[in-house]
């Protein structure tokens, strides 16, 4: 297809304008302030007074935590969010297939990779867990993507993380394209998906 709507690569690749990347970096990280921040006490609803005192514990979005915690400046210290700690790592290593990754964080893998940048002592174990989890689950995702044609897949995709959902969809599209080719339908000119979706929505609004 020539049309310049290259959907998957831009979704999988992080860049400055990527919506998924912005939403990933919006996930919260538990932080503790090491030095007091004057005049910004209102950011913590439980704080008294106008300043954020040193020692305040707060959940900050990743982009903020990243800016305030680097080798040069340590305004906050960072802890790993719960789904990446020892307890959950054990669950994932026991059987990754049954875990609802979407509940643990819609961008579980991507966010896990971002967390490595803080250089925490357990960063290595987290990356091992991510890799293990992915390779265990990938088999199942591929299997189900290649074997259900025209069925309701929400039960399967509901437990997948955003990256896995993209993979699942790619697999499904491959399967449909293959069936199209098999039944000799691939030369048929079909209406563009955007137009079809648009029409469907209009019909719904009309009812």
């Amino acid at each position: 297809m020539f049309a310049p709507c290259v959907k998957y690569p831009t979704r999988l690749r992080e860049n400055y304008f990527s919506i998924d990347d912005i939403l990933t970096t919006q996930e919260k990280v538990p932080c503790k302030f090491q030095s007091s921040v004057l005049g910004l006490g209102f950011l913590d609803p439980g704080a008294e007074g106008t300043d954020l005192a040193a020692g305040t514990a707060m959940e900050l979005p990743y982009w903020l935590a990243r800016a305030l915690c680097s080798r040069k400046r340590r305004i906050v210290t960072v802890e790993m969010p719960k789904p990446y700690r020892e307890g959950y790592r054990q669950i994932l290593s026991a059987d990754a297939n049954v875990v609802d990754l979407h509940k643990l964080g819609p961008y579980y893998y991507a966010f896990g990779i971002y967390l490595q940048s803080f250089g925490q002592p357990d960063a290595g174990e987290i990356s091992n867990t991510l890799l293990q989890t992915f390779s265990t689950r990938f088999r199942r995702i591929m299997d189900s993507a290649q074997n259900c044609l025209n069925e309701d897949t929400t039960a399967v995709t509901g437990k997948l993380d955003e990256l896995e959902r993209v993979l699942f969809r790619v697999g499904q599209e491959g399967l449909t394209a293959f069936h199209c080719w098999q039944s000799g339908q691939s030369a048929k000119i079909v209406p563009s998906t955007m137009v079809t979706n648009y029409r469907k929505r209009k019909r719904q609004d009309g009812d």
Partner: protein
Amino acid sequence: MYGEKAVELIRQLHRSPDGSLPPFNEDGIRQVLEEMRVLFEQNQADVNKTVDGAPGLFPGVQLRHAALERNKRCLLAYMFNRMERLRAMRWEFGSVLPPDIKYNLSEQEIQWFSRYNKSLAAYMRSIGGPSGGGLDLTQDLKPPKSLYIEVRCLMDHGEFETEDGTILLLKKDSQHFLQRSQCEHLIRQGVLEHIL
């Protein structure tokens, strides 16, 4: 927390399904810009105080600066992704957008869309040299197998004039045998159905 309003814009885009564009959120953008203005002024005041010798303001400046950059990123991404989607629509819907999609665009986006249309048309005309007559890139998205194809009308579309001047009435459920190049766009729009 800073940056929440900006992310809300991004979420709006994320939620909206393929083939639609949410209304241009001018109010949301204005609020984010206002937040950024306040952040910038506070930072400037704090930097001036630090230059005059006040201690301990630096962490606050850092925090606000990060929020400023984040807001900037969200705003730019909002504009950019809308533009990308608009560009995809040019290829899917053709050069004329449905009125309710057009209604959701901002003034600048409408201008951008018509300029994109013009550049695309100029480019397609320029292919094949000065006498080549150009090439319609939006045509033959799949390799053509025959010159004529059989189509069925899915809705009443009114009269349709082919290139050789014949006038056809495209009535619902009527079938026609047409040149592929002339009806491909109508199939893509969902007016006709290609029968194999």
